[in-house]
């Protein structure tokens, strides 16, 4: 099977993708409406919490953090898929990424925006959030640069701004296409402005190539550093269940994992909603699925390493936390995490399921659920069973405010993402053209040498 038909006319690529800016299927509007409603729930919860105080989220003395931080990590993690697809695979010259990397990058940007909101939602005094910004002020004070939370803020800012820049730079040639093709209106003005007068001259392409490559090179260590810094929020502390050396790689693997799972979900949705069957083909899906499977196994391994190292150490407190996870209040969720994260992905190993859309959709949702549970299982159990016995308290449960906010964040993300896909081309036109061109050159060469081997196979 071929990734993509090499005989698609370039003009048709433009046409098909630009169509996504015009009339999506009805499902698009349904999704948009549901997302808006979900966001409404979160806004309501936040207003209530803002007015009354953090107490309504039902946190208490040992349980200082709850779903907010867990979901924050979840969204940060999800952002790593975009970097994986656009930067790592770009450097590895895996050109099957080309039709799908744009939406993965958008996913990166929007999930980072969502994660950033959770930081704000989590604060007791969100109206003083500017205290955490390093700027010379009339108080003569600075934030505490030793705090992993500040590293987080710095890393997320760097990651977010770099991702937006990367997304934008990669989109400039496509914006020029939109500028040339789209009918008059505010959007044409927008594209004219954003495309910066791109005309595809040799000078522009030459510099573009180097820039894109360079920024991709920067993004990879950045993505790794972002999630390992998030890991150090926990690893740098002294708490049992957090103070674990393998946390940074474990978090990075988890991040790639949940990101890939989310890509599968959105791949399936976008493919249907915007009629991208021609570009987001099943062979490409198959490749992501295999990648996801590999990462799932890495994650499973690191998970096991974490348990093993805790068990092997003489740290009784850490051991107790692990036992608590497996048998205490959180046991159902902990086992669900193991099931969703390590058992469910085994389905992906079977060839027949690798292109089965309903199965993949269900599996990818389960994987996402598993990864969310993973974050919750990192954050919460440590609080109910800390070092100091007096503070052991296993009866805490997040209130509807916390759940509502988590629920609504998915609406917020979907809303941003769906609006993006409607306003900007979510398939990279110029790169699909490149892909088609290279494939056709390849098959031409093979024809010339008289070998009629299946053209697409070389890419596998």
């Amino acid at each position, binding site marked *: 099977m071929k990734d993509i038909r090499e005989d698609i006319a370039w003009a048709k690529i433009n046409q098909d993708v630009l169509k996504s800016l015009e009339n999506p299927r009805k499902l698009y509007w349904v999704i948009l409406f549901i997302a808006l409603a979900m966001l409404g729930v979160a806004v309501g919860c936040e207003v209530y919490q803002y007015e009354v105080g953090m107490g309504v989220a039902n946190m208490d003395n040992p349980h200082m953090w709850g779903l907010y931080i867990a979901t924050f990590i979840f969204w940060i993690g999800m952002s790593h898929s975009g970097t994986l697809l656009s930067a790592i695979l770009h450097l590895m010259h895996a050109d099957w990424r080309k039709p799908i990397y744009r939406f993965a990058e958008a996913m990166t940007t929007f999930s980072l925006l969502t994660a950033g909101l959770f930081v704000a939602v989590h604060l007791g005094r969100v109206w003083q959030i500017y205290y955490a910004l390093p700027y010379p*002020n*009339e*108080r*003569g*004070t600075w934030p505490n640069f030793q705090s992993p939370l500040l590293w987080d803020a710095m890393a997320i800012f760097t990651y977010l701004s770099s991702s937006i820049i990367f997304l934008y730079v990669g989109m400039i040639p496509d914006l020029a296409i939109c500028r040339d093709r789209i009918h008059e*209106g*505010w*959007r044409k003005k927008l594209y004219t402005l954003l495309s910066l007068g791109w005309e595809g001259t040799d000078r522009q392409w030459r510099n573009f190539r180097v820039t894109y490559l360079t920024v991709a090179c920067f993004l990879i260590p950045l993505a790794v550093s972002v999630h390992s810094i998030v890991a150090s929020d926990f690893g740098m502390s002294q708490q049992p269940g957090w103070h674990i050396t393998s946390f940074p790689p474990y978090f990075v693997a988890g991040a790639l994992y949940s990101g890939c799972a989310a890509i599968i979900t959105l791949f399936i949705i976008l493919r249907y909603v915007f009629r991208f069957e021609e570009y987001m083909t099943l062979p490409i899906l198959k490749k992501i699925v295999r990648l996801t499977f590999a990462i799932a196994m890495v994650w499973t391994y690191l998970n096991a390493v974490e348990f093993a190292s805790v068990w092997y150490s003489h740290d009784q407190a850490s051991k107790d936390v692990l036992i608590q996870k497996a048998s205490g209040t959180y046991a159902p969720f902990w086992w669900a995490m193991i099931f969703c994260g390590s058992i469910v992905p085994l389905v992906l190993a079977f060839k027949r399921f690798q292109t089965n859309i309903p199965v993949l959709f269900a599996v990818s949702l389960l994987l996402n659920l598993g990864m969310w549970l993973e974050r919750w299982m990192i954050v919460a159990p440590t609080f109910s069973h800390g070092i100091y016995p007096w503070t052991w308290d296993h009866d805490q449960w997040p209130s509807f405010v916390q759940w509502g906010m988590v629920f609504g964040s998915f609406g917020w993300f979907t809303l941003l993402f769906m609006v993006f896909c409607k306003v900007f081309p979510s398939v990279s036109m110029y790169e699909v053209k490149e892909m088609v061109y290279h494939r056709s050159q390849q098959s031409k060469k093979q024809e010339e040498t008289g070998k009629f081997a299946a053209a697409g196979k070389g890419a596998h």
Partner: protein
Amino acid sequence: MHRFLRISVLLTGLFAAVSVYAAESLQTTQMTEDSLGPLVEQPIEFPHNRHAGDAGKGGMEINCMYCHTYARRSAVAGIPPLQKCIGCHQGIESVREAPRIKKLFEYWDAKKAVPWKKVHDLPDFVRFNHERHIKRFVEQQNRPFQEVCGYCHGDVKEMTVARRSKALSMGWCASCHQKDHAVVAEGGTQIGSQAYWYTFYKPEATDGSTDVLKAKGPNDCWQCHK
């Protein structure tokens, strides 16, 4: 699509207007021209210039601490009790019929304190200590009172009703404490003895004189915030 544009411009404008209005309406007090502090309306327009001003300008050069008597021995400077005003004014017949003095005696007769309003009102989480500053500048360095008080309160002897004329923000406080003051220690306590961390905040003798010490203010948040 022009409709969309127009609506968004309209909404943005509306939002901006509402937020400006909201921000303004929160600001109930009238700000002074240099926007350093609120304009405070006192029950009696007390003429600081008359009491404390220079003799050449018709003032009586009364020491600040004659009325604000707690400044040298407690954290707060204090507002004089009505008794103190009356103590002098019952003997000064020449101004007895002036409208402000009349008002003063009205309070006296009604046995009520004058409800003075606070002008230099720091937020509740800031605790400034007058005593330490008076001790250091007036008693150890023999600087004139009015100059020392003026570091924070401005030139009160030129004012009628006192007005805030310094920023009184944390950075403003620090702007003094950050300086390496050459302080002549004339007996008394060692200056800045609590104001160091390791060696570089310890008071150190500058070149030439053993009496001159470089001192810095407290480097401890709890000194002012408790």
